């Protein structure tokens, strides 16, 4: 077991290095900071001096190592627009995004786990068809369209929920206010995730229901409720661990668009405004951060999977 964990971590290291190389290469391809300087009033010599000062005259791989060294000190560079350190900007926007992502993940699991299990137990019955059809609807509806529909219904027509921001302007906010602002973005993010999760959990559960140990449990006559909730559900936890791991990159991506629509003051909104103003250090900082998080999430999922499922082959 320890051998397997060490091996997984050793495989992850070159991937991590590769991610930093890709990230840096994209940033260089996107344009050099010198372009911002160019203009009629800036002389060639000044640009040249700045080039040397920034270390841009050195070969690509040296620049990369300098950048990597800075990275280890927690320095992701500076925003072209606001001149703030990128790491500070990320830190200040991380909270709202984590809140949104965490809430959506929990809500989607609260929908998907019972629905997937219900659907598997009632396979090929009306309830099953209804759940599967809804799950397809969930994964087929674009997040932004669902957001617009919700805003149209709950904000414009009914006036129940606020459509933008995290707190009401001019107030301190408070728990209930934030909660009211969260409802719609969380529904949208959770709906798209629940769609694919329901089908995943359903098929995993179907497989479990056919296992011999469940037949034994049924044969003991302990009742349907106990069979499903004690014997089957515990084994269904294995695929649920995988589902959570798979959802992390989806959450990061989905948050960018949803935060934009609802003006949620998180990482996604910051990234989107950086993209429109071509603020590459900020964009690539966020990309790097999310790639590393995804990599770690995958690593943890694999290790947890091996811990939870003793039958998995560790070769």
């Amino acid at each position, binding site marked *: 077991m320890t051998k397997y964990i060490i091996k997984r971590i050793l495989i992850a290291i070159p991937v991590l290095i590769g991610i930093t190389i890709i990230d840096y290469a994209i940033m260089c391809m996107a344009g050099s900071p010198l372009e911002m300087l160019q203009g009629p009033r800036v002389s060639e010599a000044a640009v040249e001096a700045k080039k040397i000062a920034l270390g841009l005259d050195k070969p690509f791989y040296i620049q990369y190592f300098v950048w990597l060294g800075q990275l280890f000190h927690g320095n992701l560079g500076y925003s072209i627009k606001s001149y703030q350190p990128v790491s500070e900007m990320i830190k200040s926007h991380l909270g709202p995004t984590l809140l949104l992502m965490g809430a959506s993940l929990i809500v989607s699991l609260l929908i998907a786990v019972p629905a997937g299990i219900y659907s598997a137990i009632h396979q090929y019955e009306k309830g099953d068809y209804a759940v599967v059809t809804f799950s397809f609807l969930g994964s087929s509806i674009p997040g932004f369209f669902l957001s617009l529909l919700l805003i149209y219904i709950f904000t414009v027509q009914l006036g129940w929920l606020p459509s933008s921001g995290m707190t009401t302007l001019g107030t301190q906010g408070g728990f209930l206010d934030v909660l009211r602002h969260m409802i719609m973005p969380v529904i949208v993010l959770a709906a798209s995730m629940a769609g694919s999760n329901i089908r995943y959990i359903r098929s995993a559960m179907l497989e479990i229901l056919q296992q011999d140990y469940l037949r034994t449990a049924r044969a003991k006559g302990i009742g*349907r409720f106990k069979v499903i909730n004690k014997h089957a559900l515990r084994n269904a936890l294995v695929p649920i661990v995988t589902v959570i791991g798979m959802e992390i990159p989806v959450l990061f991506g989905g948050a960018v*668009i949803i935060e934009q629509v609802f003006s949620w003051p998180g990482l996604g909104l910051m990234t*989107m405004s950086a993209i*429109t103003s071509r603020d590459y250090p900020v964009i690539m900082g966020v990309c790097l951060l999310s790639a590393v998080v995804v990599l770690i999430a995958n690593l943890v999922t694999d290790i947890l999977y091996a811990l939870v499922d003793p039958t998995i082959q560790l070769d």
Partner: protein
Amino acid sequence: MEKFKMKKKFNRKKAYAVHDSTDHENRDIVSESYLETIFRRFRRHHLAVISLVVLVVLGGAALLAPVLAPYKPDDIVGTFSGAPCKEFWLGTDQIGRDVFSRLLYAMRISLLVGIMATLISTVVGVVLGLIAGYFGGVPDMLIMRFTDMVMSFPYILLVLVAAAIFKPGLWNIILILGFVDWPGIARLVRGNVLNLRETNFIKGNIVAGMPLSHILFSEILPNTVAPILVYATSVLAISMLDEAALSFLGLGVQPPAASLGNMLNGAQSLTVLTRQPWLWIPAGILIVVLVMAINFIGDALRDALDPNSGR
């Protein structure tokens, strides 16, 4: 009562099983062709059959857009933001273009982006997967680690960054979506090739000294087409959703060309959202219907093409 219910259920399942197996054997006697089997299995999924009809009708409408559209998509023919009426079935947009005609052309663009992006990512994924799976060793390691790296970046973020670097436009969107969405297919193909390589008929081919291109493209590839096809349908659905999202954010297909996503772009303004629903709801519904139809077909294909489904 509880136990009794369960008993009944078990009996019913068993009855199904018996019925299925005899059914299956009977079919074997008449020896239907592979395609007939697939068709028979596919037909059992009613939603998928309906989806196929819907997709053919909508695809046909998109193809025939120049004939069907009552107006030219970029011509200003009516009042600004006119409500739906007899003359303009779905109203007119902010600068007086016919929404229905634009919708037909938008569907054309969105389907084109989806299909082309899927083709590109499938070809890239299949080639890399074949190389990695068949040759193993160093090429396998390099390709799979690269796949891991690309997969670590959140998909939408990568597409957005690429769209920001390259100028947004129809062909750039197709290329970006195509070159970002191949890792899934590469992994799938690699796994299948690894399994196939251990089978006797491939080993026989190698012993017989068949040329490499023959083994790869005439022996291995046809045996892994079914899962690729199923996966490609989900890629098609995802590409269409992503095109819509990108165009909605203004980074995708650029106006005046209409795509389903950029027709929704107008809904970011409050007047359009609240007072002119005909400008954004039809385009949104069309995306949902198209993507859902593709997903249903993919799901039915998965079942129909599965050699172990046994039904």
